């Protein structure tokens, strides 16, 4: 059996390390978000993606500048993976004028429109039909772009999911349907919400390829999304990629997690996407700890930036409702 080539050889050191740094940055962001919330500095809710870092970073890395992203409520990681600015994200999280959405959107609605990040969504499945329109526009404008729409397992049970996949399929649109199956939609386990083994099986109902990958393995995610992107760019239509992962924290701010066991959480924590990837890179614990500290320092800077930023002006509420 041939030996699996090291990622360091395939990607080169810089790219391989960048992936790790992004994952560390996401985790540090989420841990800080949780802390700020506990300190009462955040008005609103949040959905943390701790444990899902590889799923966000691997997918983003497989795409090119100019491609589009639509994502969902558990979206801090997606935005950072897409190259989002930590300062603007933290400022948005704290509702400041310097935030991505000038404090109007908050945690659930972070968008980085200049980078073709068309935004997180507070509505489960809300971005899925929009992906059809983005795909259609790419096709009509005859560009080489693709759109990835990220959503959870829960979103696959909204009617609009089915309409969207079918439309993208019949028109061969360059859409990557990226389902982050973290095993639960709030308290609802996937096992109780659908009678199929894999969400990717739904692809066959629309005549498109469906694949399931280990979402805690950055490289597998990367490969699957890359293949889907190539197919989309070649004009061969959409793909449904299911990324199997797990959220370590509760659904949102207040969740007693009565629907799952501590043992289950612990089992999944053993599959920590960051540790796994670092191991694959052959990094020492010391180097990993150093990179982790770097990420945490960056987050501290972001908090300082956000806290020093001005609040939005109350007299501007009516601005920005219409173009």
């Amino acid at each position, binding site marked *: 059996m041939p030996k699996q080539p090291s990622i360091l050889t395939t990607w080169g050191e810089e790219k391989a390390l960048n992936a790790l740094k992004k994952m560390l940055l996401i985790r540090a962001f989420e841990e800080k978000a949780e802390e700020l919330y506990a300190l009462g500095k955040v008005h609103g809710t949040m959905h943390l993606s701790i444990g899902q870092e590889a799923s966000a970073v691997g997918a983003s890395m497989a795409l090119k500048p100019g491609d589009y992203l639509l994502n969902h409520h558990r979206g801090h990681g997606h935005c950072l993976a897409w190259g989002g600015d930590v300062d603007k994200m933290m400022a948005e999280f704290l509702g400041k004028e310097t935030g991505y959405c000038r*404090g109007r959107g908050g945690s659930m*609605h972070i968008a980085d429109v200049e980078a073709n990040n068309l935004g997180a969504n507070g509505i489960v499945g809300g971005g899925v039909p929009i992906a059809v329109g983005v795909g259609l526009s790419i096709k009509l404008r005859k560009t080489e772009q693709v759109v990835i729409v990220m959503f959870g397992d829960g979103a696959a049970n909204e009617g609009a999911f089915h309409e969207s996949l079918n439309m993208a399929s019949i028109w061969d649109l360059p859409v990557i349907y990226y389902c982050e199956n973290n095993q639960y939609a709030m308290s*609802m386990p996937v096992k109780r919400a659908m009678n199929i083994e894999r969400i990717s099986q739904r692809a066959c109902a629309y005549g498109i390829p469906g694949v399931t990958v280990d979402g805690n393995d950055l490289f597998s995610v990367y490969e699957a999304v890359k293949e889907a992107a190539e197919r989309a760019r070649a004009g061969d239509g959409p793909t449904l990629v299911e990324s199997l992962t797990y959220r370590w924290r509760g659904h949102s701010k207040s969740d007693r997690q009565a629907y799952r066991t501590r043992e289950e959480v612990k089992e999944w924590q053993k599959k920590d996407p960051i540790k796994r990837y670092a191991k694959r890179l052959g990094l020492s614990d010391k180097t990993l700890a150093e990179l982790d500290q770097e990420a945490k320092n960056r987050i501290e800077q972001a908090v300082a930036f956000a806290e020093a930023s001005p609040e939005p002006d109350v007299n501007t509420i009516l601005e920005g409702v219409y173009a």
Partner: protein
Amino acid sequence: MRELTYAEAIREALRQSMSADPTVFMIGEDIGVYGGAFGVSAGLLAEFGEERIIDTPISEAGIAGACIGAALTGMRPVGEIQFMDFVTLSMEQLVLQAAKIRFMFGGKAKVPMVLRMPGGSGTGAAAQHSESLENWFVHVPGLKVVMPSTPYDAKGLLRAAIYDDNPVIFVEHKLLYKTKGPVPEEPYMVPLGQSKVVREGRDVTIVATSIMVLRAMQAAEILAKEGVEVEIIDPRTLKPLDMTPIIESVKKTGRALVVHEAVKMGGFGGEVVSLIVESEAFDYLEAPVRRLAGLDAPIPYNRTLEYHTVPQVENIVEEARSLAEGRF
């Protein structure tokens, strides 16, 4: 009398209705082991089992449809939409099916269902989790719309809604869930379609809904110290709407202010104002009838912006005071 929170009062209405009547059941997202996003159904799964406390996939059109189908065939379902915002995904089933079936079928079928949902802002949940869409339903013949402001009314109105033979949209408010008030232990009903005078006064009539009733009551305390006596009326049921106490009150005060959280344009306030000026109360008016309502904007995330997007106590004080003082 014993005090319960608004959430507990709703839960008690559900529990008592389900215990007494096997046709009543609940269906919605995360209502079982999670107990509902706001804890309203906490404990009901243990009491009634999975057969009657039904957790659904995230499928709001499906939830509405399941209620309609069950109601058509002898059940009295109580559906829960986790946030009122998501009822937009159920609209076809509610507006074109539930509301019309009885009429279209020549009165030969009925759809006795309740769909509960929390509306409103104030929790920092931003634009897609803070909507106040009650007036969308008021506009649809065939639907009833209920919006309680106290634990007492929440329990009694919910029981009345469950036993009503029509589809009822039952609008709760996130900020009300933890408010407390006296609630009798025994089962009782507050009939749909009865407005209530919740405070008497001679100077200005305030018609307020949901959380705005509480804010109007606070405003009234402040105004009373200035010698302005406000009369407050809570319609409780937006449809069918009982205008009698409102018209009587305006005949007495000659001044009226309608307060709600939903956006002013196209809101419920416009309807109330129209009904006042179309009535005999018109001749008694000493000032223009005013509305105080949400700004014509989505709810912002930022706490301060969010606060200033919907009416607050100080805004009500100011509006009522200027009406009373003849400044308009």
